[in-house]
């Protein structure tokens, strides 16, 4: 029946009052003539109230004449009557259509350009290029030619390996992936030397092409030639330039120092907090003060309140400053424990500096304690290839 009610709401129905003496006969006749009546209730001895469809009401006329009762409409309900009433209020309808139109218009504009995945290529540069082609905030999104943007950006930046242009709602999303730049390659036929990239003690110099000028035990510094590409021809005593190639293994030293005070101040939260709200319009802010911050030492945390969790850059922002009271404590640390911790940290730090193919030969750790400060020196002796190709210019 619920479904029927909705159906009749769309079709429209009337609430009528029937007055007469033989109302049962009226109901029977309506039923036999297939006129649907519902929600019939007895108002008084001579009055019935009921609901009827618009067509049903029209068809009732014949029965009314035969039975001899009076029918009047109390109320008209349903969509057709609603529309009829709305016709008189043209401005309301106009406003509704205007509203829909504005919504449609605003949602067909680009409000945000998001560029994802760029590391070396600057966002501003991309935006500048797009702006040159009149692609910026406020343009109609149906006008955007995605393929053209792709073509434009791929042409402009040659180190992009992937680019996708997508319109999501009112956002223009440009996703890209940059290529990893390959290391500079020197062509095989270009004459070059192999020079040292850092200082070290030579352990082994294997020249596959060219002539090794260093021997085991030599100490070299950065920039020294290890394998030269200049060879003397034994017969003609002429200099020949070749593309030097080979491996030069050397022992190098990496060291790292970490200073750690043995007495540490620790900020411990006491659990008491104090919040303060800030209202920002543009760059100007208003803080709502409630007296001074009641703590001597505190940590400040700032959080922006975003309405409905939307990621929109609104001109008005609300910040919540939370001040957490802390207690400053001085703790004397366990020296042994501190030694271990800084040792591990130093080794980790050194590991980041080491090249991939390096072999660690030995490790040396030294500790000095002075004025409540523990200095930790970690020295690593490493065997690595220190050769680097360098083009021979001139000649």
């Amino acid at each position, binding site marked *: 029946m619920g479904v029927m009610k909705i159906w009749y709401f769309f079709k429209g129905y009337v609430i009528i009052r029937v007055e007469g003496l033989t109302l049962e006969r009226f109901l029977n006749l309506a*039923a*036999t003539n297939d006129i*649907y*009546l*519902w929600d*019939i209730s*007895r108002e008084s001895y001579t009055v019935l109230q009921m609901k009827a469809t618009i067509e049903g009401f029209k068809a009732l006329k014949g029965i009314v004449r035969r039975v001899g009762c009076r029918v009047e409409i109390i109320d008209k309900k349903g969509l057709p009557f609603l529309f009829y009433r709305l016709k008189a209020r043209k401005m309301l309808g106009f406003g509704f259509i205007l509203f829909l139109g504005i919504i449609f218009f605003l949602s067909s504009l680009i409000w945000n350009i998001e560029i994802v995945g760029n590391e070396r290529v600057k966002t501003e540069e991309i935006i500048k290029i797009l702006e040159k082609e009149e692609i910026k905030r406020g343009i109609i999104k149906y006008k955007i030619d995605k393929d053209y943007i792709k073509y434009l950006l791929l042409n402009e930046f040659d180190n992009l390996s992937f680019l996708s242009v997508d319109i999501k709602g009112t956002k223009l999303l440009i996703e890209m992936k940059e290529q990893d730049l390959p290391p500079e390659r020197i062509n095989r036929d270009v004459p070059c030397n192999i020079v040292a990239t850092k200082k070290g003690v030579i352990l082994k110099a294997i020249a596959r092409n060219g002539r090794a000028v260093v021997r085991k035990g030599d100490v070299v510094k950065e920039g020294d030639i290890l394998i030269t590409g200049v060879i003397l021809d034994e017969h003609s005593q002429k200099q020949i330039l070749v593309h030097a190639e080979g491996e030069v293994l050397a022992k190098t030293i990496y060291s790292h120092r970490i200073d750690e005070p043995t007495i540490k101040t620790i900020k411990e939260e006491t659990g008491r907090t104090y919040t303060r709200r800030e209202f920002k319009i543009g760059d100007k802010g208003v803080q709502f003060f409630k007296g001074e911050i009641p703590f001597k030492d505190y940590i400040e945390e700032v959080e922006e309140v975003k309405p409905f969790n939307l990621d929109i850059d609104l001109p008005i922002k609300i910040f919540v400053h939370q001040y957490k009271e802390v207690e400053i404590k001085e703790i004397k640390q366990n020296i042994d424990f501190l030694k271990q911790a800084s040792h591990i940290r130093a080794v980790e730090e050194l590991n980041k500096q080491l090249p991939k193919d390096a072999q660690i030969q030995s490790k040396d750790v030294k500790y000095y304690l002075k004025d409540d400060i523990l200095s930790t020196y970690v020295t690593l002796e490493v065997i690595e290839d220190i050769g680097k190709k360098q083009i021979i210019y001139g000649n």
Partner: protein
Amino acid sequence: MKGRMENFKYNISEILELPKDVVMDLPKIVVVGNIQVNISNHKGIVEYTQETLRVNSSIGLIKICGTNLELKTILSEEIIVKGNIEKIEIYS
């Protein structure tokens, strides 16, 4: 003669398990708690007030007593009565 015919119909519906209200042209009265009565296969309303509803049928008058009775639907084959139902009487 009529009695015999009715008997025959009754037996057939017993044997074939056909619904008797269809075969024997009887009214079917469905009572939902004390709030609603559906009467199908009726032969017209005789009286309707807030307290009583009398409906004609092939077995005679069906009288429903109660308070705030309201006819939810009237169709040529079904009547739905809503309200606080107290009594259902059949005068055959």
